[in-house]
């Protein structure tokens, strides 16, 4: 079976731009959650979100390009550029029918469609645009990446809510493993912090309303958690067929080992430990890795009561006693929930935990929940030294719709 190497990382998150900046913020336990200043939040119960304030689109695009790209495309294309640069890939290797893109997004070009709808429904401050469709369509971001990088192979957009980014990386991994591509740009991007989306989530009563201070709002696995914090961001990885990566002398960060994907087929929003654990088991089987070989789980960990309990149960079902011995973290505590980007950014954090041998913390943990009884790394970043090293790790992503996607990644050996 063909092996798949991970050779580049591009990430834009509320805590920073680029692999090094994001990583040092994560292991420093820094929160990227802040007050929303971009629009009026008077009628919302939540006035905080994870916004990528350090992302300067003008460093990647000229004004004409910016006018053509919704913010989600700006995030996706910029993160792809960073990933390709990190991989040391020259354009010649991407300008090929054997190179492609799989991108996950939950909301697509939401801001562009809201702007058009505003004008349509008579808001005098909103403006119609003749290009609202090509800016807002869900596949705009993946297409814009291909246009920018000249990848001519498969170009696929996956929208499975909060598991989109993980599904995208998993599908890209399989495209390479089974011979349909040599190199893939894969990950997720979302820019859903808009007035309409915030209001719709408000009505669903799943957002944290712990507005003060913003950085302490998101409390995954803690008994006093009250919901997730909406965020934006993009996480992109470069995947390459192992021998092709070696041939060009690429620095190999890790090996993608397995991918499992299931549907709960139960309820549109209510999570189900059975579907989640089956996705984890299938990822292990796909990786040909035993449950006792998993050294770390990067959890979906949204900080909703339903997710955290269901996920903890699923992890215990799959890993048994091993579940209590290994670090399980949620970086959503720091960067919020970036929907279709979350699974990709968290997978990147999982890879970096392996390369750096440090597990970022779950911050804001305050009260023990008897139903959430794993080791959630609540004391601060945990260096993995001595006997307990991370060789193989798992990243969980579970989305509305009952979509579950799990990735297994291993230290490159």
């Amino acid at each position, binding site marked *: 079976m063909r092996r798949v190497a991970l050779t580049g990382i591009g990430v834009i998150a509320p805590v920073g731009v680029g692999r090094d900046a994001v990583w040092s913020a994560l292991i420093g336990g820094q929160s990227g959650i802040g007050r929303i200043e971009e629009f009026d939040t008077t009628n919302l119960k939540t006035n905080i979100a994870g916004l990528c304030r350090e992302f300067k689109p003008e460093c990647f695009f*000229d*004004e*004409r390009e910016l*006018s*053509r790209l919704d913010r989600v495309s700006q995030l996706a294309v910029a993160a792809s550029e960073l990933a390709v640069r990190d991989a040391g890939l020259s354009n010649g290797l991407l300008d090929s029918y054997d190179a492609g893109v799989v991108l996950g997004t939950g909301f697509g070009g939401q801001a562009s469609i809201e702007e058009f709808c505003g004008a349509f429904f008579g808001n005098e401050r909103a403006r*119609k*645009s*003749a*290009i609202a469709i*090509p800016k807002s369509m869900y596949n705009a971001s993946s297409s814009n990446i291909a246009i920018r990088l000249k990848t001519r192979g498969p170009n696929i957009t996956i929208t499975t809510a909060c598991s989109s980014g993980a599904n995208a990386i998993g599908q890209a991994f399989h495209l390479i493993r089974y011979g349909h591509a040599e190199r893939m740009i894969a990950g997720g991007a979302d820019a859903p912090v808009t007035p309409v989306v915030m209001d719709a989530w408000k009505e669903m009563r799943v957002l944290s309303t712990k507005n003060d201070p913003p950085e302490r709002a998101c409390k995954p696995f803690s008994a006093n958690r009250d919901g997730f914090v909406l965020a934006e961001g993009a996480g992109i990885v470069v995947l390459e067929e192992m021998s092709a990566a070696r041939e060009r002398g690429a620095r190999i960060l890790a090996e993608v080992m397995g991918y499992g994907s299931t549907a709960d087929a139960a309820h549109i929003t209510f999570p189900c430990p059975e579907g989640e654990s089956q996705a984890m088991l299938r990822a292990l089987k796909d990786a040909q890795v035993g449950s006792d070989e998993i050294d770390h789980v990067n959890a979906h960990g949204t900080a909703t009561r339903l997710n955290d309990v269901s996920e903890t149960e699923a992890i215990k079902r799959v890993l048994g006693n091993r579940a209590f011995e290994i670090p399980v973290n949620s970086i959503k505590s720091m960067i919020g929930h970036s929907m279709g980007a979350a699974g990709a950014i968290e997978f990147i954090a999982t890879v970096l935990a392996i390369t750096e041998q440090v597990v970022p913390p779950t911050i804001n943990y305050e009260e023990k929940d008897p139903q959430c009884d794993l080791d959630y790394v609540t004391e601060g970043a945990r260096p993995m030294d001595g006997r307990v090293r991370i060789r193989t790790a798992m990243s969980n992503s579970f989305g509305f719709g009952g979509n579950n996607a799990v990735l297994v990644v291993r230290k490159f050996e």
Partner: protein
Amino acid sequence: MTSEAAQSIEDVVKNIIVGELRVDPSQLAPETHLMKDLGADSLDALNIALRLEEAFKIKIPDEAIPRFLTVGDIVKGVQEHLKTN
């Protein structure tokens, strides 16, 4: 049409082109070609048409848009449209 009115139509048209194509106003002469000289494409043409419709409260027929090649074409097209309506 008075010369002031003609001048103001030209100014509005130029402002719209500058806004949509992010070009410097000094680049716009009557013979400036939107695609060849300013790098516009068909999507830009659609946005310019939309802004012209809003600014002058007119309806630009589909078949007129491909004839809007230069700054002068657009100014003349808008003037004629306003005259006949």
